[in-house]
């Protein structure tokens, strides 16, 4: 899973003007040719900063995202769901591991990133600040939040930074299984008892607004990202991503007989884009700045896990015992 609609730092003209123009020209030409930038290559400071921020946010979204679904592992109904959900959430934690190591190639350590997460300095996907009340909420995340994530990740995998793109290729392969799993869970709810259908409809009602927020603020109000697009850090606008998601999934939700809670939602066949009720961007801002239903709880859980594990990490770093064992 992954929170799209990253928050980027404001781009100041100075940031780019101060760079060596010759090196900048070579760098931009390489990107224009479709080459990947590797850790040891020269890169503008702004590129490095924005990438760290983006990959770090993505990593945080994976470990924080493991929490709302993770609480359902112990409650998943039946062996099939229990085992699949365990494997799925484990994948998400594995994605965090991959992403943190990609961000580390740019000069920020995993410890620093996790510290910044806990202190609230760096962000994660807003959608995980909402609660999962029922099994159907958990199914919504597995299917549709992961679907949204794939839309973003497939685009970002075509970006310019080599280690991030390679991590995303692996992540997308795993996510495609998550999507199948989530869809399968929802099909069973749709084809199940009246109670099961009602559970998913209620989850859809709760999660639709955060799902629309997922791709980030509307292009009309989001920060200027031209240079980030040129450098292939950002691969599509928030509205483009949102539109692509709606294109792919609205009909699938309708096919299952559920009602999407937005009376204005329809495809404009002339512009080939979706029309919908403008999401409440004030709420989005409020939640991303810490005032959502679960922000405090999510960070508190992460903080406790870090604190409880500190002695283990200290013991691992102890030079007294370097234990090496052959794997075979």
């Amino acid at each position: 899973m992954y929170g799209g609609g990253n928050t980027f730092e404001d781009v100041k003209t100075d940031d780019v003007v101060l760079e060596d123009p010759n090196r900048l020209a070579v760098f931009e030409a390489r990107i224009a040719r479709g080459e990947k930038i590797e850790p040891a290559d020269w890169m503008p400071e702004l590129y490095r900063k924005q990438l760290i921020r983006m990959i770090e946010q993505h990593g945080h979204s994976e470990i924080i995202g493991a929490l709302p679904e993770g609480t359902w592992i112990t409650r998943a109904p039946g062996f099939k769901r229990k085992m699949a959900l365990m494997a799925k959430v484990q994948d998400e934690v594995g994605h965090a591991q991959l992403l943190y190591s990609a961000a580390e190639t740019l000069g920020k350590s995993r410890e620093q990133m996790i510290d910044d997460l806990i202190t609230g300095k760096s962000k994660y996907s807003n959608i995980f600040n909402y609660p999962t009340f029922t099994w159907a909420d958990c199914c919504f995340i597995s299917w549709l939040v992961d679907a949204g994530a794939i839309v973003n990740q497939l685009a970002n995998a075509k970006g310019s930074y080599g280690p991030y793109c390679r991590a995303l290729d692996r992540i997308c392969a795993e996510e495609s299984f998550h999507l199948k799993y989530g869809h399968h869970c929802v099909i069973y709810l749709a084809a199940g008892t009246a109670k099961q259908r009602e559970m998913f409809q209620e989850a859809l009602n709760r999660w639709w607004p955060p799902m629309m927020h997922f791709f980030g603020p509307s292009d009309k109000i989001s920060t200027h990202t031209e240079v980030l697009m040129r450098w292939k850090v950002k691969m599509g606008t928030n509205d483009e991503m949102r539109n692509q998601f709606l294109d792919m999934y609205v009909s699938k939700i309708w096919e299952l007989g559920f009602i999407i809670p937005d009376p204005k939602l329809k495809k404009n066949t002339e512009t080939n884009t979706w029309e919908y009720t403008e999401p409440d961007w004030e709420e989005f801002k409020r939640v991303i700045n810490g005032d959502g239903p679960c922000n405090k709880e999510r960070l508190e859980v992460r903080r406790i896990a870090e604190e409880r594990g500190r002695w283990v990490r200290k013991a691992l770093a102890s030079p007294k015992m370097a234990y090496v064992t052959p794997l075979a």
Partner: protein
Amino acid sequence: MNDLALKELLYKMADDLLILGHRNSEWTGMGPLLEEDIAFSSMAQDKVGQSLALYTMLHQLGEQTPDTVAFTRNANQFHNCVLVELPNQEYDFSLVRHFLFDTADSLRWNILTKSSYEPLAQLAGKIKGELRYHTLHANTWVKQLGSATEESISRLQKSINIVMPYALGIFEESPYETHIIDKGIFEGEKVLMEKWQAKVTEVISQTQLHLPDWKILTPVLGGRKGKHSEHLQPMLEEMSEVFRIDPTAEW
């Protein structure tokens, strides 16, 4: 073949694995480092998968479906040892439990590869390979943390002292013990315990940890007969929370 004796053996093994797998899965998102989060989740998946294989075998012997036996029984119908149902607590507790249980479980499956009950012997051949990684994981961590810092050594020692009487409960004998041994289904809990003590001693002797004197410990028994701690029933209620909404529904 006395079906009851075989079923009793399969039930206690399946219940141990389901309950410990469930507990291990509670580390998801909470591990002391990401790599450990992932490792505990892998072991949880293996254990729950192994329990499913055993419940499936029981189903073939006429018991109810795996989902029904796993998700609808009450605590007093479970045959797991008390050790596996205890809450995770701190990482040192979970690690020591994992080390002591998986050492025994690995030896158990190895013994079962020679079982006269062919389906069990075949399953053991597959599962013992999975257990190899579980014990490799446990031994690596016990050796590392049992020799690293003052805090890690004292935490592990404290957990060993607390966990050991419960670990001895793994080997609580079945009323059918003699039958199981005579029929060549399993060598029995006594043999397993001796092998286990030797293996545990071998690993611990490579650390700065100490084992309590086995002879003066009182094992925590009763789990195999359905007598459990206060922790099992709430855990089972949580596990079946969604399933119970409508046990006839397909999820």
